[in-house]
């Protein structure tokens, strides 16, 4: 692959502003915070232009910077609004979990074929709305782990929870999402 000419910073706002803003808004849910994240991204990008190697589309390079800024904002928001998940401890303390770990967890089978649903565009709208309905801190945990690909160690630090607690939070997030998906996807059919 050869390097292709890349747009100059003067054009970044017009070319990528909307894309980055939408992405930030999806993750942060708050227009003002999303704008901040976009601004920080552009500033960091201008200052770090020489670190861009020109091998990928500049859009994805900018998005990579934005994703770090988003995690920073989540980190800040969590610190200001400390959340605790008391339900999690219940599962960890249960006799069966202590006795046999994940073998004690037997999720009910899906009420629809998820893999067939993945092929439908409408499914992802439902997935998004179920994700947005997750209560905190489950939504943040799921977003960081699954959407923003953060390590468990990092998420534990951000949320101030133990690895076990994070594990239960992820389990609960999946169970709640599944229940929501089943309800909404079945209703639609």
């Amino acid at each position, binding site marked *: 692959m050869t390097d292709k000419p890349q747009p100059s*910073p*003067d054009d*970044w*706002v*017009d070319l990528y*502003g*909307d*894309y*980055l*803003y*939408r*992405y930030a*808004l*999806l993750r942060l849910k708050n*227009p003002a915070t999303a*704008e901040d994240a*976009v*601004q920080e991204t*552009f*500033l960091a990008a*201008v*200052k*770090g*232009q*020489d670190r861009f190697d020109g091998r990928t589309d500049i859009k994805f390079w900018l998005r990579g910077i934005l994703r770090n800024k988003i995690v920073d904002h989540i980190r800040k928001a969590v610190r200001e609004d400390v959340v605790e998940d008391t339900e999690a401890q219940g599962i960890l303390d249960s006799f069966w979990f202590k006795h046999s*770990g*994940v*073998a004690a*967890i*037997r*999720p009910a089978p*899906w009420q629809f074929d*998820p*893999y067939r649903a*993945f092929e439908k*565009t409408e499914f*992802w709208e439902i*997935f*998004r709305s179920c994700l947005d309905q997750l209560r905190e801190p489950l939504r943040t945990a799921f977003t960081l782990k*699954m*959407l923003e*690909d953060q*390590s*468990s160690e990092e998420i534990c630090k951000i949320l101030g929870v133990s690895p076990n607690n994070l*594990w239960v939070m*992820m389990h609960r997030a*999946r169970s709640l*999402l*599944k229940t929501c998906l089943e309800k909404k996807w079945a209703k639609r059919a």
Partner: protein
Amino acid sequence: MLTCKQVSRALERGDYAKLPPLSRLALRLHVAMCVVCGGYNRQVMAFYDAVRAFLKAEDADLGNARVRLPDATRVRLKETLRGTSPGR
């Protein structure tokens, strides 16, 4: 042979699709057949598969969504960027 614990650990760490093909296959086989951890880990895998497809759909949608960066912000950003010089 992988143990249930190894499989669960690997799936906790991150998307199994990013593992080398052989490890991925070993995981898939274990989870498909294991009566102990299969029920749980199949669900974990389904969510990785779901999220991967979701992110792809999301990215396609980002290109044609109706939401736009507010004009005032756009103008302000351009001014800020013009006043910022590249660092070293």
